[in-house]
C-alpha cells in the first residue's frame, strides 16, 4: 500500500487498479462501521482512495493493516441493480463502429457486461461504472453538449455513466433510462454508490 498525505487531515491510498480500490474501500468501511477507525469521508477514485477527516493515529492504524484480499469482495453475494435502458443514444452507431460491431452487437455487449460503480463525481449521484475494460474505451466528445438530459447513459474512457440530472456533458450517449438515480429524500440519496453492481437491461 502506498499512502500519501493530502493536507492536515486527509490521506490518499494509491492502488494498482479499480478492484484494489474496491477491496480497500469495503475493508475500511467495515472497520469504520465497527468503530476501529475514524474517517468522515471515504472517497474512491479511479486508482486511489481518499480518506478525508481522519482521526489521529490513522496512519499508524492503516500501516498495520494487511492488504485486503480481493476475494474478500464477495461479488456474488451482492445484489445487482438492473437499469432498464432504451438504446437509442445519438452516439450509439459511432460507438458500435469503434468497436467494429453492428449496433445490435454493441447493445448486446452493453447488456451482458457486469458493471461495478468505481467512484462517483461530476455531479451528485453520477456513477463511473467500470466493467467494459480498456479494449472498449471510447474517447470523450471533442466538444461537450451544452445539455444532456437526465437519465442519459453514456460512455467515456473505460467507464459507463448515467446522468442523474440534466447537465452539460461530453460522454458518448448510447441510451437513456427513466430510473431516478439521485433523490435527497432517500437514504442513501444515490442509487448507484461505489461498489454497487449494475446491469443495463434493454427496455
Amino acid at each position: 500500500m502506498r499512502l500519501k498525505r493530502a493536507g492536515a487531515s486527509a490521506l490518499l491510498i494509491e492502488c494498482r487498479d479499480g478492484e484494489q480500490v474496491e477491496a480497500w474501500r469495503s475493508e475500511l468501511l467495515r472497520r469504520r462501521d465497527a468503530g476501529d477507525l475514524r474517517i468522515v469521508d471515504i472517497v474512491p477514485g479511479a486508482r486511489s482512495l481518499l480518506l478525508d477527516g481522519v482521526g489521529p493515529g490513522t496512519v499508524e492504524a492503516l500501516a498495520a493493516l494487511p492488504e485486503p484480499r480481493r476475494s474478500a469482495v464477495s461479488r456474488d453475494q451482492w445484489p445487482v441493480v438492473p437499469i432498464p435502458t432504451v438504446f437509442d443514444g445519438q452516439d450509439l452507431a459511432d460507438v458500435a463502429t469503434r468497436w467494429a460491431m453492428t449496433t445490435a452487437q454493441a447493445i448486446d455487449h452493453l447488456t451482458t457486461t457486469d458493471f461495478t460503480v468505481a467512484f462517483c463525481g461530476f455531479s451528485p449521484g453520477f456513477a463511473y461504472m467500470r466493467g467494459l475494460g480498456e479494449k472498449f474505451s471510447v474517447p470523450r466528445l471533442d466538444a461537450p453538449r451544452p445539455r444532456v438530459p437526465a437519465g442519459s447513459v453514456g460512455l467515456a474512457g473505460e467507464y459507463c455513466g448515467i446522468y442523474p440530472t440534466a447537465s452539460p456533458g461530453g460522454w458518448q450517449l448510447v441510451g437513456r433510462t427513466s430510473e431516478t438515480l439521485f433523490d435527497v429524500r432517500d437514504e442513501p440519496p444515490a442509487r448507484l454508490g461505489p461498489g454497487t453492481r449494475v446491469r443495463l437491461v434493454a427496455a
Partner: protein
Amino acid sequence: MITVVRAGPLTTIQDQGRPGYAHLGVPRSGALDSRALRRANAMVGNPASAAGLETTLMGCALRFEEPAVVAVTGAAAIVKLDKVPVDGLIEVGAGSLLDVGRATRGVRSYVAVCGGLDVEPVLGSRATDTLSGLGPARLTDGMTLSVGRPPAASPEAAVSLEPDDSPEIEDQPEIADELDLGVWIGPRDDWFSGSELFDTPYRVSPMSNRIGCRLSGAALTRTRAGELPPEGVVLGAIQVPVDGQPLIFLADHPTTGGYPVIGVVDDVNALAQARPGSTVRFHALD
C-alpha cells in the same frame, strides 16, 4: 419572518455544510469563511451548526417582521439599522430594516440571527451549494425567510454576555490584501518540478467563486505528461490544470478531480475574504 429587501449579487443561506456524502459526488458546501459564520452564531447564542446568510461584496438588506438579535461578521462593512450605523450584537425591533453595506475590505459578510434561519435541511445541511444546486435557493428581492426558535438559554443569555469576554467567540482576524498561506505538500507534488509554487506570488483572479479561488501568476511546470486518473480531492486542494495556473478548492468544490493536486492549503477561511487582485504567497508546512 424576514423579508429580503435587497438580495445583493449573491447572498446564500449557509451553515457548516454537508460532509460525509463526498463518495456519492455531493460537495461539502457550507460557509466559505466558516470561522466568521461560527463567530456570528456564537455572538447571538446559536449552536455552531445554525444557518445564517453569506453575502458577496455588496451585502444585503433585510426587514424583520418580529424582534430579533443579530450579529454581522466577516468582511469589513458598514451595517445600519434603520439608517443608523450599528456594531456588535444588534437588537432589531419589529419592522426594522437591517442593511449590510458594501464590503470595504474582504468579500463576504455573515449574518446570524438568534434561532438560526429555518429552512428545510437537505442531506443534513441548510447550505446552498452553487456547484450542484443542492440546498435552498439563493436570495432574491422580496423573498421571505423564517427564523427558528432561539436556543433555550437565549437570547437573554447571549445579550448579557460581552462578546469579547466569551471564550467561545474567536477574535475577528484582520483582513489583509496580501495572504501568506501554509501549504501541505502533495499528494501529487511529484508531477511538478521543485519549489515553483513557493517562489513567486500569485494574484487572485476575478474568475474566483464559491467553488474555487483561481490564481494567476507564474505557470507551474509539469514534469510528467499524461492524465491523472480521477481521484478524491479535499477542501483547500491546489489543483493545477493544463495551463499551469493554480486553483484552490473552496467549499463548493467537486468531490473528485482529474488534475494533479500539488499541495493543500491548511486554512482556506482567509481566501473567502480575498478580493480579486489580492496577492497570495505560499509557504510549505511539515
